[in-house]
């Protein structure tokens, strides 16, 4: 039976978005832009790296996005959004000062405490850098908690690179290794770095496998090939985390859209330990 009258209870899910104002936007290319939002009624989103929010555009729709900024950043939070559908197109058309609705943050992430004192390896494919950036900046903020930090990032071509200025700053630091590659270089585009799929960057890395934690985010097709390389490096499966994409409608473990076998990406993820999902056939393909 349902519990007694509960109006006073704080945790009932009302699905009500809170208002957020767009305070800045930085465009990387025709389809990728990072948006900075300020919440109307509170200073901080209060997320942890890996969590996501539901973005509600009145009259258009609601869709989930991983938070791209680190919680160590004060004030507005950032969402890096690729224009692929009606909600994302509507967000792209917004001007600074416009408002929309936010629900969240939602989701479970990895336990950063367990990473302390270890090497960190990030593998980002395409738009997969957007969610990983939150964790990367969190770890750089607490740099002395960790040993070596390595990021490998692969894009289709140089025009799809996200956060190019920030990447440049990362590359200038001597306490982080940042390797980048593109699948191909279109004619007329200048590029003097590595060319090849992301897995070509992994064999050359020196990895202390038992003391390395890896976080991977990218298109599903990438996971399998990256995993083969991580297996070649003998990184233990419970040291590998994947951030997965699904189309959550509710964010609270009910609507069923994000279900991977018995798991819910919105509550058990979106960041999963590979050991947990590797035997669940719906996770990666």
């Amino acid at each position: 039976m349902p519990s007694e009258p509960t109006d006073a209870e704080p945790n009932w899910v009302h699905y009500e978005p809170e208002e957020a104002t767009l305070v800045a936007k930085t465009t990387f290319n025709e389809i990728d832009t990072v948006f900075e939002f300020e919440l109307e009624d509170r200073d901080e989103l209060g997320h942890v790296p890996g969590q996501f929010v539901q973005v509600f555009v009145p009259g258009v729709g609601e869709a989930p996005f991983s938070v791209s900024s680190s919680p160590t950043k004060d004030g507005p939070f950032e969402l890096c959004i690729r224009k692929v559908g009606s909600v994302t197109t509507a967000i792209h058309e917004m001007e600074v000062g416009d408002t929309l609705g936010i629900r969240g943050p939602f989701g479970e992430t990895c336990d950063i405490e367990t990473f302390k004192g270890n090497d960190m390896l990030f593998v980002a494919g395409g738009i997969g850098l957007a969610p990983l950036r939150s964790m990367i900046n969190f770890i750089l903020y607490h740099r002395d908690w960790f040993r070596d930090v390595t990021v490998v990032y692969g894009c289709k071509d140089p025009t799809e690179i996200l956060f190019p200025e920030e990447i440049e700053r990362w590359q200038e630091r001597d306490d982080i290794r940042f390797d980048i590659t593109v699948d191909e270089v279109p004619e007329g585009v200048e590029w003097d770095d590595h060319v090849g799929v992301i897995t070509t960057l992994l064999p050359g890395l020196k990895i202390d496998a038992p003391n390395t934690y890896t976080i991977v985010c990218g298109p599903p097709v990438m996971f399998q090939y990256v995993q083969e390389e991580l297996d070649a490096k003998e990184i233990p499966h419970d040291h590998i985390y994947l951030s997965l994409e699904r189309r959550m409608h509710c964010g609270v473990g009910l609507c069923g859209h994000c279900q991977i076998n018995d798991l819910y990406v919105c509550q058990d993820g979106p960041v999963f330990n590979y050991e947990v999902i590797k035997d669940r056939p719906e996770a990666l393909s």
Partner: protein
Amino acid sequence: MKVIRKSDFDDLVNGLIESDPREVVGVQDDGTKYVFKPLERAADLSLDYDVTMLSPKKYFFPQKERLVQYRESEDGYEMLRDWSSEGKIIVGVHPYDLIAIEQLDRIFIDTQQDEPYRRKRENSLLIGVNMQAVSEWSFAGSMGTAVTDSGFDLMLTDLEDRYAVEIGSRKGSKLLEESPVREATLEEVDEVERITDELPEKFEKGIEFPPEKLPSLLDENYDNMAVWDEYADGCLSCGTCNVICPTCYCFNVDVVDFITDDTGGTVRRWDGCLLEDFAAVAGGENFREETVQRHRHRLMRKGNYIYERFGDIACIGCGRCTQHCVADVADPAEIYNKLWRSTNA
């Protein structure tokens, strides 16, 4: 246990229709099928029905309901809130549907704290009735859901000109206060016991093994593609088995503009995991692209996933999905039995 004459029960229901602020709904024969719908008079009840088209789930988790509503003005968005209780009085719920509602209560209220469900459920009253007729598609007897001792405010058992009434809650007890009821005789108590004891045997269909073995059976047979393919081959991915199911609760959240051009909001409406794009994402991937993956997912969810997460076997054996499947490939009892035989042959 109490006893009430049928005419007095009708008076009780008519009194509720007349004076209770809540809407009274009940099982009625609409000519081609039995349905739960608003009740105009107690005489319209068909409490000797076998199974209804939809379960009373629709009153707590409607096909379509508003989630949020706002008004837009120069100052921004103002939320229009109406979180008042909107319960119903539901007359004539069979035990398997009561068990389904108990499961949804555990998920929507106790675990996920869904406010739209709570405000419909909490103020509602459930008057159950033990089955007098058994649907030819039902296998509730073998699922342990043909009778129940919980989940109702009152439970009726037909005793010709009287109902035996079991009281399940204080709300139920209060409901009887104004009515001429008496204590049941020993013979009447025995008669109710005989009826409920014999009920599980009346089902022609059934699973051939104890329902508690379902979760592990499904675990073992996830890759038993011979069986899954046999049924998925004919499946039209229409989602009827989802929408007809008393324990299916997947939904979409859609944005709508309603009422006027300065108000809008979101609605949620039933969705189904059998529908082709249910697990598709914006990037173009579909994580259950094949019919067989979706078909298997429904049966895994009923017998394994929900159990693992919330502790309940989510198939309550009503047989609605079997009855309404156009392609005749949805019958959980038949599929589960086939898996059982292929594993235990």
